[in-house]
């Protein structure tokens, strides 16, 4: 007798799955990163400003930093530019830029026009370094802790809301722990 209710019960489960699917639909192309909690790939790339200099995150070991992946072709990056400048201004954490798949001259012009929030900028025109970080779109921002572990990855332009909600708590908690 009860087996005739099985289709209805299964359907109820399916509806729950669908409802969940609807809930996450706006973010359906976002893929969680497996690098959270893993060591950040170490890189040594030419600096955007001066090709003879290099930017290496080995030198950043022992400090918190944000790695922000951007490009002049990226429309959403323009949306977060003011927020990045504000973040850099607060001095809470240095922002390291990774200029991805870009042209050097266009990037320099862009920064000159809009301001430069980055403490340093690594230049990755070929895109192969970005692959090491599991980057698949721009903008993406990583939080790296002093031990060189990736703590968080944020996909999309950083809004003031996202900064207070997703970044500060992680940075603050760590700062109270590390006492800096």
């Amino acid at each position, binding site marked *: 007798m009860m087996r005739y209710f099985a*289709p*209805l019960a299964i359907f109820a489960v399916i509806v729950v799955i669908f409802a969940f699917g609807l809930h996450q639909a*706006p973010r*359906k192309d976002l893929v969680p990163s497996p690098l959270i909690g893993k060591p950040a790939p170490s890189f040594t790339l030419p600096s955007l400003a001066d090709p003879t200099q290099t930017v290496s995150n080995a030198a950043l070991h022992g400090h918190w930093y944000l790695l922000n992946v951007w490009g002049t072709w990226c429309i959403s990056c323009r949306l977060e530019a003011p927020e990045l400048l504000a973040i850099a201004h607060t001095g809470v954490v240095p922002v390291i830029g990774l200029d991805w798949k870009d042209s050097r001259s266009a990037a320099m012009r862009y920064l000159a026009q809009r301001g430069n929030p980055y403490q340093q900028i690594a230049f990755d025109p070929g895109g192969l370094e970005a692959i090491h970080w599991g980057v698949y779109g721009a903008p993406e921002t990583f939080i790296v802790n002093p031990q060189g572990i990736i703590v968080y990855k944020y996909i999309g332009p950083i809004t003031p809301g996202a900064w207070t909600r997703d970044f500060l708590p992680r940075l603050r908690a760590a700062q109270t722990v590390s006492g800096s």
Partner: protein
Amino acid sequence: MIPELGQFALILALLLSVLQAFFGIAGPALGRERWTAAVIPAVAGQFVMVSTAMGCLMAAFIGNDFSVRYVAENSNSALPLFYRIAGVWGAHSGSLLLWIFLLACWTLAAAVGTARLPRNFAARVLGVLGTISIGFLLYTLITSNPFVRLDPPWADGMGLNPILQDPGLAAHPPVLYTGYVGLAVAFAFAGAALLEGRLDREWARWTRPWATTAWAFLTCGITLGSWWAYYTLGWGGFWFWDPVENASFMPWLMGTALIHSLAVTEKRGLFKSWTLLLAVLGFSLSLIGTFLVRSGVLISVHSFVASPGRGEFILTFLVIMIGAALALYAWRAPQMQSEAGFELSARESFLLFNNILLVTACGTIFAGEMAPIISIALHLGKLSVGPPYFNPTFLVSMLPLLALLPLGIHARWKRGGLGERGRTLSIALAAAALIGCAVAFGVFTGAGILSPVSMTLGAWIILASLIDPIDRLRRRIAVPRAVLGMTVAHIGVGVFVIAMTAVQGFTAEQDVALTRGMSARDGGYTFQFERIKPLHGPNYGGAEAKILVTRNGKPVTVMYPQKRTYWVQHMVTTHSAIDINGGSNILVALGQDLGDGRWSFRLQVRPLVLYIWIGALIMAAGGLLAITDRRYRLAESRESAPAGPLPAGGAGS
């Protein structure tokens, strides 16, 4: 004026469908004959209103009325007339109107087709169809109104997506939707039986033509889509287990199970709850497919542009419609048990496994479809599922089914056993194995183990299907249309299997970079790049290459692959050149200018790919042939002499 007329017509259609649903269900339930009789005028009225709305939208497209937002977003004055008409269903809102229009057509057909059936039953069928109309009309009017105006109107439209500017757009959605919507009729028949609390063999005989016709259209619709993808997307693929494709395939699998289950119910009054459930599930999966494709839940090249409101509305509609049907099933189906028996080796047994294997296949595809969402929900990271999952898991259910098919069509009802047929079938199997291995190892080279096995199965299915008609002709017994249809359909299955094996196992494909005069070899053919020249079309520009194809030094054909840039949409499309040569399809697609006079090309030789679609069309033809059998044209069961040695009626359940 005309768009407003169209919108008004839709509103009237909604009101009429409410009346249709109300009278159809309440009339018989409360025994009010006047209400029951009022269903027919409601059906007719709804059809008129919906046709009017469809006509108005078409008029807006043809007349280039860019004050209507949907027309402005999907059409353009430079668009050829053919595509201005087909473009009506090129995007979400218009395709919904197509759905509603086809539903009204099927409802009208159902009203005519059930005219000689018991009044209460027919009214219930139309009432259930009415509830479906209500849902779709509400959905359209509230979230996806195609008649919304733009103020101020645009000077010209955005034009139709270049991929859709193809005869495939004129054919694929209407045929496919005819199938989807047709399953609603079987759903309605099941609903009527559940409401009535009664199901007998007569019911199965009434339902079968509707279910089979819908299934045949769905088969053709999916086939058209696959063929369209093959020649238009530029890399010679025809099935990607894409979420939208799966959304059309699942109802098809249920539909196939349904038409076979109906056979058992009609013959022996068995599998009643199975048949009811399959009828409900078939259309439910159509609805679920609509949800998946339009709600933005899944990522697909084919999906319509979604908005959250649309998804929530459909989900609510699903819950009400399917939930009610399944609840009714849970309540009423237990009362419809029959007590007949059958042996393990009987045809009923084979058809039971047929049902189970098809449901397993459907469930597997559904699991793969939902896997990304489920894995996120359970915090298991995000999974992705593609052909490497679907192909092997689909075979897990399909190979046993194909192996059982030749036996099942000869097994005797009830008592089971093959009788003398057993020997003939074994001979056929041996012959098939010879053919299968010869083709797999001889004609094509480098086969794995799967290719000869599935070639053998395909050949065996064809031979086994022919045994019965040949036997009848030999003994000068008539071959009823139903048997002929079944034979044809199963031959179609065999053809499909053989073709699929050839394509999966023996496709030769590579990407090459050529300069003028250079050639490359692929699949036994040599392709020489002759020249490239610029291209100018009515709404596009581009480049066209000329490729000479030879085999063993002898010229085979000349091919002209194109690359087009559509100016209005800034879109680049690839028009591959396809040629059919000796059972294989040769495809050449033009890639990019690599500089230094080098161009990239994709060369692909696919043996027997055409027979995949031909096999599927043969299946559909068999189905349509089967339902022209005399017994479906008889309104009531008769005790008079049957046309062939088949029961025209007989003992009730």
